[in-house]
């Protein structure tokens, strides 16, 4: 590393340190979490700027998990939305008078767009879509795998408003032969040897999908800084790794972009299930892409005691990669008998779909309640979780264990 870049790195860390000193941290509230959950046990609740109490995965770069109680409804509040950064330092300040989204590379007309440009020069588009980390629930993999040991809260659903990415690229004029666009945000590693977080999408995919947005609004408000202020990419149906936050540059390139976070990072086995036998390595891999079908029981929380002979309302959400949820079923006898849950309002095919069901437990003792979702092309979840070495694509029938009586 050159002396200059070392000095620069030291300066950035020093500046960050000054900010660290300027703020305290809420005390650990770990006892509030389900201590019977081995993945969450011992992890504190913390309150970061513009956020409510979230479960700490890592302090720096920050990774914060949404408690399960927020998934009893379709829309995840901005303040409860999970946070996941890859490199440190992260952006802590944005000046809109100087912030620009630059469109560069293989385009006819390079652009520098202000936030006002994004809002006024392009039609306003909206989509309600799930943003889920590729590694959500990685902590539940068996055998365990290295990486962020998330529980199930690295996901959220919001109404995103912004400019269509295809409209922005059309305004810039994509040149013949361009293959991909790359996306870079304001987060820059302290050392130049650390790979910057840059992702890519195929131009063909972008131009045929009007729901891919550069979003400047989340649930009717500006994005929290830690969720990508002032604008982030929204790629409905695909994992959050593509939803680049604090977006600052889009470069159109004429080859497949294969820097670290596209290869070898964020790859899945190149087969129909994205899975391999535990402990083995994949012969061929592809970049992770569309999400698997998932469903969760948010209420009652696992470990809750419910009275026998009285109706209990079960609530939660289900989602997939954009075919839309067709049906949610629940079982209260460990998976022998299944019955349909009631579905809530349809907020669009990329959204969480609320579900609810009423259950009157009769026998005192332990009861396992399970949830199973199907999308419109019949994709569902298995009884046994599939495995891959990076802990991606979690897709299994979920459950809560309750005490009756």
């Amino acid at each position: 590393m050159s002396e200059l870049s070392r000095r620069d790195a030291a300066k950035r860390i020093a500046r960050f340190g000054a900010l660290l000193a300027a703020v305290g941290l809420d005390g650990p509230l770990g006892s509030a979490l389900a201590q019977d959950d081995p993945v969450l046990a011992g992890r504190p609740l913390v309150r970061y700027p513009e956020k409510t109490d979230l479960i700490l995965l890592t302090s720096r770069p920050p990774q914060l998990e949404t408690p399960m109680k927020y998934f009893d409804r379709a829309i995840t509040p901005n303040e409860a939305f999970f946070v996941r950064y890859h490199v440190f330092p992260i952006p802590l300040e944005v000046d809109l008078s100087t912030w620009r989204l630059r469109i560069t590379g293989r385009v006819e007309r390079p652009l520098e767009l202000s936030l006002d440009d994004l809002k006024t020069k392009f039609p306003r588009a909206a989509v309600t879509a799930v943003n889920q980390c590729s590694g959500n629930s990685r902590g539940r993999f068996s055998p365990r795998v290295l990486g962020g040991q998330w529980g199930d809260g690295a996901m959220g659903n919001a109404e995103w408003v912004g400019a269509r990415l295809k409209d922005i690229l059309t305004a810039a004029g994509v040149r013949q032969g361009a293959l991909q666009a790359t996306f870079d945000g304001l987060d820059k590693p302290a050392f130049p040897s650390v790979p910057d977080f840059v992702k890519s999408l195929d131009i063909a995919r972008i131009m045929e999908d009007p729901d891919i947005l550069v979003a400047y609004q989340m649930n009717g408000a500006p994005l929290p800084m830690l969720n990508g202020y002032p604008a982030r990419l929204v790629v409905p149906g695909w994992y959050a790794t593509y939803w680049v936050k604090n977006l600052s540059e889009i470069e159109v390139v004429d080859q497949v972009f294969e820097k670290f976070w596209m290869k070898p990072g964020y790859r899945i086995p190149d087969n129909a299930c994205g899975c391999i036998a535990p402990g083995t390595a994949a012969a061929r891999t592809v970049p992770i892409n569309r999400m698997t079908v998932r469903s969760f029981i948010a209420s009652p929380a696992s470990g809750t005691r419910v009275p026998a002979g009285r109706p209990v309302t079960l609530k939660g959400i289900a989602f997939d990669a954009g075919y839309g949820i067709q049906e949610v079923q629940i079982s209260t006898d460990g998976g022998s008998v299944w019955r349909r849950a009631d579905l809530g309002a349809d907020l669009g095919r990329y959204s969480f779909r609320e579900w609810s069901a009423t259950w009157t437990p009769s026998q005192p003792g332990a009861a396992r309640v399970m949830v199973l979702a199907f999308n419109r092309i019949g994709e569902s979840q298995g009884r046994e979780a599939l495995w891959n070495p990076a802990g991606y694509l979690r897709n299994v029938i979920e459950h809560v264990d309750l005490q009756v009586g």
Partner: protein
Amino acid sequence: MRRILGPGLLLAVLAASAGAAADKTIPMPADHAYATLKPGPGVEVTRQQCVSCHSTDYIVMQPRGNAKQWDGVVTKMIKVFGAPVSDQDAKTIVEYLATQYGN
């Protein structure tokens, strides 16, 4: 409309509209103490080398592993992420992690 706003209220309105377009700055909480590394030979070298890029929860949350696992992790930090760690320090870190966070 403007006439019925007092000067104080008018200022407040101007401040609010200016605020919407101005800088957004957030402070950043310090690394949380729950991830403090266990004491043992090599803990200081491990802490110093690792925290220049990330907090120590990145270490303590991982599945327990033998020296081979931790050597793989430390090698990845150096080779893939370009962490400026000497061979000697890398050896110390692997020994520390395999002892304190071993299986």
